[in-house]
């Protein structure tokens, strides 16, 4: 089919004009018959003519397609979605908080325990206990095998350990919620942590530690360990290899006894749940945990430092630059969230490509200096980190560092209203889009109760986000970025990455 078209094209373009043969025969008398060929003779002229008509159609665009696609970010009102179902919170006599948000039209539910305990609360000798314990708890209790029972119901049982919190949650159908609460309570209070299981789990964890040395997680682990050196936030979650090898049943029981205490736990549920039923069940079941509310926490100190691990045998360099940010309860944390959206993130699969809103993403994509780039803002109880993580080929690290530092420092000098409105809208929509199922909602409830002590209503959160305007951004950037120490962590072929003093100099401009 294509061949036929090519042949007909060739035939048409080779067809000589009729006047040509006449000219060749008699030269002198027929000169006035020579004329330039009409625009339909050659194929390129025909194509140019049709292209011209198509381009002229672009002059008058169809208004129907321009109705919603305005490139100017605008503030819009969200009052119709702000009245979401209310979160009911009850505090039991032993200190445990039960919080539920029931959406009447869902048939599944997530119920889980969020505990204010993590790798931050360990000491140097016991580092790694929290993560180990979380793995062991899934292995079974005296009466039953928890994972099997949940799977028999058709649900999922999952858990994670962070630096400041641990969570165990189960996603089940609506009629299995009370049984799931039963299983969770059993897991936490009656776990049999026997030696055989422990040694098997130990090997699994050691293998995971070895495998995870080159991932993105490794960069962030190194970043925390250098930024918060000599301080509990600097310890990695899975612990040092020597500690993993020596953890025993007494360590785990001691950890449960001291840190899994009821005032530090939140039982959160969302979906097809009824608040009173869960409160009643929790009252009956959570009896064996201690009600000690002391949370011994050492303050975390930020040290401006860097850690670089050169490895020329991997193809890509990964590095992260971080400033010390604020705690999650500080009002400036909202402004930092908006600034994180202003810096944005980009990778080669991003649909926006070279046309994204953030200037850093545009600079990175137009010049092709990174494989991917992500701004992050994490908050802990008394401190936090704000920075940019990037993955790049080894030859463009200088340009990439310049782009990152100039974008961050620019937030203290020149901020346009359009950028702030766009970032605010993106933050609002990402917060709402993230809490779209029962599990994210339950996690949100648990985390907010642990960090803020209450669940922030959406209306208040949106009001706080809308209160961030360019002058707020400049003030917050001056407070946290202007001439402040940074922490850098880099792994891979990072020979071209500039040194610490280069980065530190670019935390301020001498232009103004």
């Amino acid at each position, binding site marked *: 089919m294509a061949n036929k078209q090519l042949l007909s094209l060739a035939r048409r373009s080779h067809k000589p004009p009729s006047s040509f043969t006449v000219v060749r025969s008699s030269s002198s008398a027929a000169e006035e018959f020579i004329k*330039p*060929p009409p625009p339909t003779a050659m194929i390129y002229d025909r*194509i*140019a003519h049709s292209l011209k008509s198509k*381009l002229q159609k672009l002059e008058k665009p169809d208004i129907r397609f321009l109705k919603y696609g305005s490139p100017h970010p605008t503030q819009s009102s969200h009052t119709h979605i702000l009245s979401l179902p209310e979160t009911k919170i009850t505090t039991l006599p032993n200190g445990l908080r039960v919080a539920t948000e029931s959406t009447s039209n869902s048939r599944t539910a997530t119920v889980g325990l969020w505990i204010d305990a993590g790798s931050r609360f360990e000491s140097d000798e016991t580092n790694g206990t929290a993560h180990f314990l979380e793995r062991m708890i899934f292995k079974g209790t005296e009466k039953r095998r928890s994972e099997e029972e949940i799977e028999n119901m058709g649900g999922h049982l999952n858990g994670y350990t962070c630096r400041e919190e641990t969570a165990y949650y189960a996603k089940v159908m609506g009629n299995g919620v009370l049984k799931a609460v039963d299983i969770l309570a059993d897991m936490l209070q009656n776990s049999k942590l026997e030696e055989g299981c422990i040694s098997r789990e130990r090997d699994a964890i050691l293998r995971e530690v070895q495998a995870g040395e080159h991932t993105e997680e490794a960069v962030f682990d190194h970043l925390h360990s250098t930024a918060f050196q000599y301080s509990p936030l600097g310890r990695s979650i899975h612990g040092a290899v020597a500690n993993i090898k020596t953890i025993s049943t007494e360590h785990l029981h001691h950890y449960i006894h001291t840190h899994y205490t009821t005032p530090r736990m939140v039982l959160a549920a969302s979906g097809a749940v009824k608040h009173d039923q869960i409160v009643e069940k929790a009252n009956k079941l959570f009896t064996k945990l201690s009600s000690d509310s002391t949370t011994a926490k050492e303050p975390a100190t930020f040290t401006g430092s860097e850690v670089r691990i050169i490895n020329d045998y991997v193809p890509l360099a990964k590095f992260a630059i971080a400033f010390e940010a604020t705690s999650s309860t500080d009002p400036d944390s909202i402004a930092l969230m908006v600034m994180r959206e202003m810096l944005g993130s980009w990778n080669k699969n991003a649909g926006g490509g070279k046309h994204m809103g953030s200037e850093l993403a545009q600079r990175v994509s*137009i010049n092709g200096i990174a494989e991917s780039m992500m701004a992050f803002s994490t908050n802990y109880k008394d401190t936090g980190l704000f920075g940019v993580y990037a993955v790049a080929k080894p030859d463009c690290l200088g340009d990439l560092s310049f782009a990152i530092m100039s974008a961050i420092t620019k937030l203290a000098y020149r901020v346009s209203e359009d950028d702030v409105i766009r970032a605010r809208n993106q933050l609002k929509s990402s917060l709402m889009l993230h809490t779209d199922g029962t599990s994210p909602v339950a996690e949100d409830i648990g985390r907010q109760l642990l960090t803020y002590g209450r669940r922030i209503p959406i209306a208040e959160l949106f009001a706080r986000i809308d209160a961030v305007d360019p002058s707020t951004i400049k003030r917050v950037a001056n407070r946290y970025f202007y001439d402040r120490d940074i922490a850098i962590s880099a792994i891979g072929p990072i020979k071209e990455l500039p040194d610490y003093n280069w980065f530190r100099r670019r935390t301020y401009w001498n232009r103004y």
Partner: protein
Amino acid sequence: MASFLKSFLDPKKNPLAAMHMKSVSKRLRRYGLRYDDLYDPLYDLDVKEALNRLPREIVDARNQRLKRALDLSLKHEYLPEDLQKMQTPFRSYLQDMLALVKKERAEREALGALPLYERTIP
């Protein structure tokens, strides 16, 4: 106002403009080039982007015309007389696309975004 200035430059109204057009046409016809062939993509990156967007046959024809003109110039020759009479130096293929590219770049700059391409001085 604009049309008043244009009447100064219109070859049909101004004999000086007609003389200029005839002279440009003669020089282009001698080498078998069109006026749009003289736009250099290395000089203006908008021309490079416009040529990227044009269909393959048009760009191929442009390159062939440029190669023929280079060959003639090397040999210090002009195109044969009968072929010269068939030339169409002012038939345009690039102006519309170039105007579109420039309009898009102006819109992008007006919105405050970084330009997609920037000419670097070697």
